[in-house]
């Protein structure tokens, strides 16, 4: 069969990505899917799936869901506010570009560097903590704040959740046309009525979709949480890490089951995000 020149070029372009996806996404996923239903000897079993229902695993899922949901909701709200502020001609183009560039960088700033940055600023002896205490007499830790807790983790996650929200929601926010605001004003609506009756319903699918994406993003985060809290906060990712790194909790097949559970949760979030985004795009077209 003859293969067209364009077909060959397309294959050459897509090939490396397909190979990468095969080696580092599809094969590992298949491996964990199979491993989740096997014991250490390779014998088929439901024991790993049943292990997901043990109290410690359920607690880990509960904490992960709480941290992810709270950081997603707060990140979505703050990111949406930033995106709405950047919309239109009110903000100079140079500031808008600067915020978007910083968002691009910050949304990918995670893991050990982010944990260190927060420890150096909001840790017990962090710069901001010390300044607040010595200059303003505000003792963060005496008031109950602890960076190495669920609240501290949520606070740290917001560092990448908020800019990610800005990047994800910006196209939808820019899809809110100036003509709509003018038409609404022409019809007698106040800016608040326009926001409530038009902008909010129009953006709702995109905002919910983006928040789900943020949830999935936080749900899968491990390096930041581990670097910041060690194993003091019981997250699924940290529990999973404990199963496969080879210490006393070593049980790779339970780890596969945990990973499968995470795939299901994040997969559902992503499917919902894509459907909501498609709906929003169709409406804004």
């Amino acid at each position, binding site marked *: 069969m003859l293969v067209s020149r364009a077909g060959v070029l397309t294959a050459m372009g897509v090939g490396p990505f397909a190979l990468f996806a095969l080696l580092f996404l599809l094969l590992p996923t298949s491996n964990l899917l199979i491993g989740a239903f096997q014991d250490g000897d390779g014998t088929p079993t439901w024991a790993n799936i049943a292990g997901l229902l043990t109290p410690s695993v359920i607690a880990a899922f509960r904490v992960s869901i709480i941290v992810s949901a709270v950081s997603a909701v707060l990140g979505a709200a703050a990111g949406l506010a930033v995106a709405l502020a950047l919309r239109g001609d009110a903000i100079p183009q140079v500031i808008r570009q600067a915020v978007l560039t910083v968002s691009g960088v910050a949304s990918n700033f995670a893991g050990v560097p982010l944990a260190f940055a927060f420890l150096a600023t909001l840790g017990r002896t962090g710069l901001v903590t010390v300044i607040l205490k010595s200059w303003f007499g505000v003792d963060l830790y005496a008031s109950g704040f602890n960076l190495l807790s669920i609240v501290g983790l949520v606070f740290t996650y917001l560092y990448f959740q908020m800019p990610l929200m800005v990047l994800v929601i910006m196209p939808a926010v820019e899809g809110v046309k100036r003509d709509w605001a*003018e038409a609404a*004003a022409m019809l007698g609506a106040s800016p608040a009525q326009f926001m409530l009756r038009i902008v909010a319903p*129009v953006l709702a699918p995109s905002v919910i979709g983006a928040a789900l994406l943020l949830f999935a993003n936080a749900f899968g985060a491990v390096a930041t949480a581990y670097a910041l809290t060690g194993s003091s906060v019981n997250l699924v990712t940290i529990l999973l890490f404990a199963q496969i790194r080879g210490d006393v909790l070593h049980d790779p097949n339970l780890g596969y089951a945990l990973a499968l559970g995470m795939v299901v949760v994040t997969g559902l979030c992503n499917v919902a995000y894509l459907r909501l985004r498609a709906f929003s795009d169709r409406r804004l077209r």
Partner: protein
Amino acid sequence: MSFLTVHGLRKAFGPVVAVQDFSLEAERGEFISLLGPSGCGKTTVLRMIAGFERPTAGRVVIDGEDVTDLPTRARRIGMVFQSYALFPNLTVEGNIAFGLKVAGIGREAIATRVKEMLGLIGLQQLGGRYPMELSGGQQQRVALARAVAIRPRILLLDEPLSALDAKIRVSLREEVRGIQRELGITAIFVTHDQEEALALSHRVVVMSEGWVEQTGTPAEVYRTPRTPFVATFVGTANVLPCRIEAAAGKVVRYGAARLTAGQAVTGAVGEIVQFAVRPEAIGLQRFEGASNSLAAVVQDTRFLGPVVRLRVMLEGGLPAVVDVHGEGARDVPAAGAAVHLWFRPESLQVLDRHGHGARAAGSGPGGSSGP
């Protein structure tokens, strides 16, 4: 006092002046078009009337009320946008009802009004559809219904037909005009399409580079253009620079040819004045009343359906165009043929030699006809 008075509007965006000394008076029920090329300031004028742009100078008065400092939502103006600007989260009925809802009108009254509007635009069956489920023409009808549902004092139309294909444009423009006439609303229509402006309007305001070039009825603007810009933008015109033969006389000279104008030409003897002659006013044979004649050589011919357009070169090297229609169009001279162009004195229309003089004169309402 006129229903709408726009006086001395000026708009500057930093060093760029978009609109200069724009004045207009419109009567109740009148349909006025602002006609000009892109960037001439026509949309800026409309946006100042709407309240979207704050004038650098000048006033807008509607029905005796000075609205210059009022926010848009307090002006009771309806507007139809080029992009339709329908709210995508609302159905057709929801869009039409929007202005009535924010005004706090009762549910039953809204339902009655929406039904009435749907009947007006002939979309009774599509009230439950969303904008994305409608064609461009249907969306623009809904936008029109939404704008007039609130019973506005003025209806502003910002190139509402530009995004539609040619056939729908023609049918929809008639609908727009019919609805405007039926409701008796004063309408200001912005367009760059001269045919649209001439076909729809009681009066046309021709604009260029922020200035009003001429205001008048479609016939006045077409038949007696005041400036070279109006002559060439509204239709096609041959602009001839002629020398005045006698003070306050009608006789001028183009090269060696003596021409007679339709009206006396003011100016000093020997002064150059520009004249416009429409291509369709020129004949290749002498016809009744055609006392002016110019020698020319045919450059090429173009078949345009109802007419054949000849591009000719006049003596002195000035290009001109001649439209031949009717039976004469079947047998036009070939390229290279020497011809004589004949036209009547009244077809030789004197143009203002000082553009700004014409602009100043044209800044007020020039036409006399009402709705």
